[in-house]
């Protein structure tokens, strides 16, 4: 019988008997459900982390390569399971089933050695719980809040959950570089970076991205996403390539291989791209995408159409090595394509983070010349504040300030003038703590402190 404890209506004693008879199964299923819930909700990002550090291939070469050693055989099995984590609910179901299976096996073993008394039944859950805790949840994840945050933001950026990032409560403001980059990128994706960036803690000029060496391997993953969407294809490729080398035990990553295939397709390096596509084609969740492009690898029109936007915002300007200045880099992006909204938002935000009035005004003027009429909120705060301080911006920007922004900025300076203290509680609480001038004053204070 498929549902053994379901009896006829009204026959309560039979129902009870069945429940008693099947209580172990019921408990196992309930515990399995708990595993499912844990994996699907609080540990969803961790599942993504595991998935992007493994790549299982359904081909003989991979099988041969992995089964050449005992460790390889173990890796083969592990990669087989983790590939399903690509789809959150499926991964959670598989983990739950595995845990239930392991618990059932443990109980079967206990029965074989005559440890089958009912009160010993809960002990059969211990080995799989320990295995889950110590193998599925990495030590760093258990110990370091920052590592948990990095995994969380990497997942949110990868799955493009911009609203989930932007709407995080104030108590959960990012404490890591990747958290800040992810938040700023999410704001830019919502078209609000140079409006609301100071609603979030901003660390300074590296608050948008840093293309140097990263402390966290996952930062390379997310930065690759950010660079690609900004139009910095070479940087996106570099981040993916470097991340690939940092994956422990020479594991491969479907996410990174797909990125490398993409960047090479965009840059027209079809032979290299083919190499990655061939590897990806025998994976379960990246295979279809890879096969589609492999089929059309010689069809320039198809590839141009598929990556039309990326190619239009991609900057390609001959041989010169660009200045390490991020502003110059972003400037070249908006010059390449005036419709690159992300790059515009980043350019204005970068000038604000630099606290460089001349650049804010200059970039704003370019922004208006490109056909954008709106003056973002943080830019307004900057320009209004400078006027109040008696500094005329150069070049001059004509704009009608939002009444609220004007009032808020004026109020900020009135309080500052009356209290003569930038650490005044009122100035460090919302709404004033969410303004450009709060960021500016704090940055100046930091510079002046010994």
């Amino acid at each position, binding site marked *: 019988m498929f549902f053994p404890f379901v009896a006829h209506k009204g026959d309560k004693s039979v129902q009870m008997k069945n429940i008693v008879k099947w209580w172990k199964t019921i408990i196992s299923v309930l515990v399995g459900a708990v595993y499912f819930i844990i994996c699907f909700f609080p540990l969803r990002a961790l599942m993504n982390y595991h998935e992007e550090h493994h790549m299982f291939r359904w081909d003989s070469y991979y099988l041969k390569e992995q089964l050449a050693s005992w460790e390889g055989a173990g890796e083969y099995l592990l990669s087989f399971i983790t590939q399903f984590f690509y789809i959150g609910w499926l991964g959670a179901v598989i983990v739950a089933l595995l845990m239930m299976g392991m618990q059932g096996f443990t109980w079967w073993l206990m029965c074989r050695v005559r440890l089958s008394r009912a009160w010993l039944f809960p002990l059969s859950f211990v080995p799989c719980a320990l295995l889950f805790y110590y193998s599925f949840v990495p030590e760093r994840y258990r110990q370091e809040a920052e590592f948990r945050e990095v995994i969380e933001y990497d997942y949110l950026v990868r799955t493009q959950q911009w609203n989930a990032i932007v709407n995080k409560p104030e108590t959960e403001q990012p404490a890591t570089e990747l958290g800040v980059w992810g938040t700023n990128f999410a704001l830019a994706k919502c078209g609000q970076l140079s409006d609301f960036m100071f609603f979030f803690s901003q660390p300074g000029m590296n608050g948008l991205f840093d293309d140097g060496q990263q402390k966290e391997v996952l930062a390379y993953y997310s930065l690759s996403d950010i660079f690609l969407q900004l139009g910095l294809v070479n940087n996106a490729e570099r981040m993916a390539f470097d991340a690939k*080398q*940092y994956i422990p035990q020479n594991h491969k990553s479907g996410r990174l291989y797909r990125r490398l295939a993409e960047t090479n397709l965009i840059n027209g390096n079809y*032979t290299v791209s083919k190499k990655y596509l061939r590897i990806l084609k025998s994976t379960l969740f990246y295979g279809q995408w890879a096969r589609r492009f492999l089929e059309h690898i010689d069809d320039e029109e198809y590839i141009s159409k598929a990556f039309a936007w990326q190619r239009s915002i991609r900057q*390609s*300007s*001959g041989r010169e090595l660009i200045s390490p200045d991020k502003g110059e880099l972003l400037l070249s992006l908006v010059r390449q394509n005036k419709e690159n909204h992300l790059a515009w938002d980043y350019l204005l935000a970068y000038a604000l983070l630099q606290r460089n009035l001349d650049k804010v005004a200059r970039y704003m003027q370019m922004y208006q010349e490109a056909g954008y009429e709106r003056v973002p909120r943080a830019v307004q705060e900057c320009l209004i504040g400078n006027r109040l301080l008696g500094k005329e911006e150069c070049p001059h920007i004509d704009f009608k300030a939002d009444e609220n922004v004007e009032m808020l900025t004026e109020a900020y300076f009135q309080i500052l003038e009356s209290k003569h203290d930038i650490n005044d509680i009122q100035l460090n609480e919302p709404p004033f703590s969410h303004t450009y001038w709060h960021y500016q004053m704090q940055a100046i204070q930091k510079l002046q402190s010994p």
Partner: protein
Amino acid sequence: MRIRITYLISYLFCLFFSGCNNVPESPEMSSNLPCIFPDYLGVTIPDGIAPLNFCIDGADRLDVIVTGGKEGELHVNGDYACFDIDDWHAITNRNRGDSLLVTVRAFQDKKWIQYKPFTIYVSEDSLGEWGVTYRLIPPGYESYGLMGIYQRDLSNFEETPILENSNIDGQCVNCHTPNCTNPEQFTMHVRGNNGATVVRKDGQLEVLAARNEELGGSMVYPFWHPTGKYIAYSTNQTRQNFHQLSDLRVEVYDETSDVIVYHVESREIILDSIVSQKDRLENYPVFSPDGKTLYYCEAQRVDSVWKTYQQIKYNICRIGFNPNTGTLEGTVDTVVNARSMGKSAVMPRVSYDGRYLLYTLCDYGCFPIWHPEADLWMMNLESGESFPLDKANSTDAESFHNWSLNSRWIVFTSRRDDGLYTHLYLAHIREDGRADKAFCLPQYNPQEYDAETIWSFNTPDFSIAPICLEKKNLYNQILSGKTAPPIRATKHGS
């Protein structure tokens, strides 16, 4: 009854395989040459080289007949052309100085196609080497992950590691250089926390401190003096930058670089101001085969290199070397004036017979591996004539070349296959210094090699015998961080 069943099984077996079209029957004749990987069409090989197995992208099956110009025939049929090693050696040996005619029939798009036959030339000149050594590394940017130095028997497909960085905490290993292809003497460099310069002479290993305060850098790009008494190194402050907006990837350049000579026995570094000038960049030193001349590259040093890196152009120079004293003598002579051509000439290598100078010519800089325009050039040292090795070059970067001991073969790296991953190529050099068409280092399974190789081969050199190392001892020495006492330095010149 049992016999009948056996017959039935055999019949079904034959029926099954004949259904798979394993054997070409009345193939469609094509006037085109086959598009094989690796490209072995018209290449010149030495006899005794590993079989030139190849595949055709999109072909389900190949049927290949190799006919010797003098004698012999091979016939293979499979997913790709895979020749038996002994049969291949026999046919190349019997056709030395002649050619092999290769007829390819491929099962493509549900039909057999017979392509126009192509030729493989078997040179009279033997290779005279056991194999090659090289580094395998992912062609990355700032990270490298796993890498190692490997050796490969050129008569078959056997590859063995010499040193893998997984055994030394993932440190970078590079610049492995034997003396005149003799593995008994070699030097290499380890970069990282326990960085070291390893020197092996007469079977004895010496692990030196990688950096020397008096040098201000580590000892790289080595070249042995033929007597084994000296090693010329350069000591460089190397930087790299990334092309964010152009079609290129990486730019590697030196902020400073000098040439030094190291006396192996006394562990003494001989510095000479003539090859370590403050306003100049000296690099890639090599000795002539008679040991009496030191060749190197030099360029004018510039400030803010990342802005002006395209202006750095190297010439190849030479100066006399006294093997008795280890000192430089005479005046500097410019051998290749690449600057006058608006180019940069780097990585000089004199043939062991002393007749030719092989170098890389590129538009600028000292690291041509990332420059698609980089080509191999040859200079006849008697006539002074320079010419590109057209048949060895491609439209992508060629560099990191070395000579075989008999000066008839060269090994080098090329990005020609996909533009990113460098592969090893070998080319025959004729009496007049011109190259025959180069061939890719033979691979057992070309399909796997094409699809799965995500490594770059670099710094290859020939080796007359396999290197036998006490690896554990070397790993322990490197990991212990115990390096030889500081090296004394003797300065010459002003």
